[in-house]
């Protein structure tokens, strides 16, 4: 079941929210949370019930380890608590490694074996990367003593909370637990419902009307990477850069909107990332909850920036290698992570020079660096990525519309060519539309800023209804969210 489906919008969401508050009022907190957990299981199991069982098993293990970590009898016996924590982390990472990286490992091992091993072709349980990280964070927070109250149903309804389960945001137990402790969250709150619906409509529009319409340009470009020329390749890479942003931030808007209806404020995940002026700024704006996780649970435990220059740089690189491999089992992802780490190291060097870079130039460089790196993120292989990048660099020639050739007096063709079909897909109008979308990401307010100014007025109602109804027309064409694959 996807957010962008009739079943979710017209049946699942209204029923789950209304029964939740009804149960809260009639039977209390526990009944409502059990209902929420059941809804989450249905939502998750709709995809494949077998993986719902795996997910339950994972939650059971983590909850048990969490209980063990909390036991007062271990007070003062740090080694035992640390052992429990390590066991918990190993189980989560082991599960993730088995489902996500086994075939990747076999593929690499086969490079050195005389008799290659057969890949196991294990299908990836949806959301495993996210729920593994959410539960690791829970264990570490519990170990550090900051996770708060932990009843069974509190934990289950937190870890499986359906708005966040497939693609985040990566939520901390303490954040949700604090909100659930507030008596005001037990009542149906129309302010939150209205805001949630508004955000949901915006997210739906971003996904269906923007991201899904950009997908064909990116897909065609990457599928035919060897045939790309200059204009094509830029259209391909920028289409993907925009598609990824609108797809993932659209999903996040819908997730945050849904959670708001349950009176839960999920952390923001995007803050106009393409407005970033440097790579550090970018990672404070893009997939914010992942960046926070990597900072708090990998970078800082590695020593952060406290152990000298060299260690700081190596810690940054290691952290982003983890980010790369977390996104996908492939060397292109690892390389993508490495280049981001390298970019951050260079940025730190730059900061030490105290040179000033004009803002537009900083914006331009950051956007293009990120755009170029998304090519590795999206490409199926290094050769595909190199094809796209060499075309972007103009190494595969330049093809322009035939009319331009006529205007220039039909010059001799060589490196520069003129053709009726000067792009694999799209034309000048497409280029202009894509350019406008880039401008929109740089100029317009993002969802978080819009929702801060939200008032239940006719203007906002018209905006939400228009976004929702236009999306509704094209909803049947639904496609999965890109981040479901990670």
């Amino acid at each position, binding site marked *: 079941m996807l957010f962008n489906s*009739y079943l979710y*919008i*017209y049946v699942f969401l209204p029923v789950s929210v209304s029964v939740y508050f009804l149960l809260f009022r009639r039977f209390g907190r526990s009944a409502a949370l059990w209902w929420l957990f059941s809804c989450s299981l249905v939502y998750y199991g709709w995809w494949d019930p077998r993986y719902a069982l795996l997910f339950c098993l994972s939650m059971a293990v983590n909850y048990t380890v969490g209980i063990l970590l909390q036991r007062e009898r271990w007070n003062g016996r740090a080694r035992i608590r640390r052992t429990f924590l390590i066991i918990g982390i190993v189980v989560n990472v082991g599960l993730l490694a088995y489902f996500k990286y086994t075939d990747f490992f076999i593929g690499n091992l086969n490079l050195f074996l005389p008799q290659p091993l057969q890949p196991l072709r294990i299908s990836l349980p949806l959301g495993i990367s996210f729920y593994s990280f959410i539960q690791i964070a829970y264990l570490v927070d519990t170990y550090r003593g900051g996770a708060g109250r932990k009843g069974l149903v509190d934990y289950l309804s937190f870890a499986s909370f359906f708005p966040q389960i497939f693609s985040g945001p990566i939520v901390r137990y303490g954040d949700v637990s604090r909100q659930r402790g507030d008596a005001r969250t037990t009542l149906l709150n*129309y*302010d939150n*419902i*209205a805001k949630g*619906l*508004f955000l949901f*409509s915006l997210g739906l529009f971003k996904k269906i009307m923007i991201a899904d319409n950009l997908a064909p340009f990116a897909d065609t470009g990457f599928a035919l990477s060897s045939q790309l020329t200059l204009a094509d390749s830029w259209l391909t890479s920028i289409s993907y850069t925009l598609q990824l942003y609108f797809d993932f931030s659209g999903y996040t808007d819908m997730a945050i909107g849904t959670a708001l209806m349950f009176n839960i404020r999920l952390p923001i995940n995007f803050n106009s990332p393409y407005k970033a002026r440097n790579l550090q700024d970018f990672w404070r704006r893009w997939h914010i909850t992942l960046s926070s996780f990597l900072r708090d649970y990998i970078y800082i435990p590695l020593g952060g920036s406290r152990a000298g220059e060299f260690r700081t740089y190596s810690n940054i690189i290691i952290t982003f290698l983890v980010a790369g491999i977390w996104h996908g089992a492939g060397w292109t992802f690892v390389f993508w992570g490495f280049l981001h780490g390298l970019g951050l190291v260079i940025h730190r060097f730059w900061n030490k020079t105290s040179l000033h870079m004009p803002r537009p130039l900083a914006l331009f460089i950051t956007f293009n660096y990120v755009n170029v790196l998304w090519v590795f993120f999206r490409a199926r292989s290094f050769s595909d990525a190199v094809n796209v990048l060499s075309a972007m660099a103009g190494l595969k020639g330049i093809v322009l519309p035939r009319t331009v050739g006529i205007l220039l007096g039909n010059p001799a063709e060589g490196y520069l060519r003129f053709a009726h079909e000067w792009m694999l897909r799209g034309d000048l109008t497409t280029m202009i539309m894509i350019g406008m979308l880039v401008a929109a990401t740089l100029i317009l307010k993002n969802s978080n800023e819009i929702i801060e100014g939200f008032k*239940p*007025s*006719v203007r*906002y*109602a018209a905006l*939400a*209804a228009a976004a*929702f*109804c236009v999306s*509704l*027309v*094209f*909803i*049947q*064409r639904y496609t999965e969210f890109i981040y479901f694959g990670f």
Partner: protein
Amino acid sequence: MTARRWFYLVASVGVAAFFVLSILNYCIDPIQYFREASFYRPYIHGNYCRYINPGMAKNRRYETVIVGSSYMANTDPAMVDKVLHTPSVNLTMFGATMREIRLILETAIRTGRVKRVVWGLDLDTLMDDPDMFRIPDFPLYLYDDNPWNDFRYIANFDLLFKLSREIIAVNLLHRSGGSADFDSAYNWMEIKKPFFGREQVLRRWKRAQELKGRAERNADTRRLMANGRGNITTNLLPLLRANPSIRFDIIYMPHSILYWLDVYRSGGLDAYVRIKQELFETMKGLNNVTLHDPQSDSAMLYDLDEYCDTGHFSESFNDRFIKALTTHEFTVTGQSIERAASRLMEETKRSLDVYR
């Protein structure tokens, strides 16, 4: 405005929009799934054949069904009516896979009207995975008798939007496009007319040879053997066995000599001969099935003026093999199968030096 009122206002608009669009979709029924169009000129276009065919299968009156891929799309049902003396319907699909053909045939057969099937078998469709659909969102819900999942069509506003635009253009703006005539709806002769002719076909063949590597063709041939048997046992045989009272005429789609040269040069001609042999052996015991093989016919091999590419031929060929259903000119028998195979092989080898 209070938040409560705001919410109910927006939610009501969302719910109302859904119902209004659903009712509109049901009434217009742009693919004529529930009924044939009565108050507007329908827009029937090959791009939507997978959506339109189930409705045609359910609502038209016929006894003979014409199925296959684009090669069969130019088959004129009127010609079939004349030759076989039964009303027919053309349910071909562009780029059809074997599974898609099976599904539309099952849908038609469930109506109880089908007495004869004319199946234009493009051997290349046997290469596809037996479970494959050509399009990712194949509307499976239109191909069964379950009325509940028709909801997915009623709520398919994307289809409503696209087809309504065309229907409005055809009816109100009098723009040409598509067809209101079911019988000629999928005929592509008019569109492809500029591409026909020996010179053009040869020129494009030479250019395609430069683009398409031999390795790709080899991979195609391997797939023919790997998936061919699966397609025969999954999508062909069960249908033929389950309907002994229906007569099936299976015609192998002919191609030009250039097509066979490509196959031969990639080392794949043997595979085509073998799969035809297997089909013959499998069908031997089935009295309701007749195989027809016009692939080694001289005119079909060499008359490149009748082709728009190496594989796709003009409607005159369709007329010819339809007429041959009664004259048995191409009917496959124990004796003819060897003869046809060696002739195709000889003609191809003989042409190696002619077409380079």
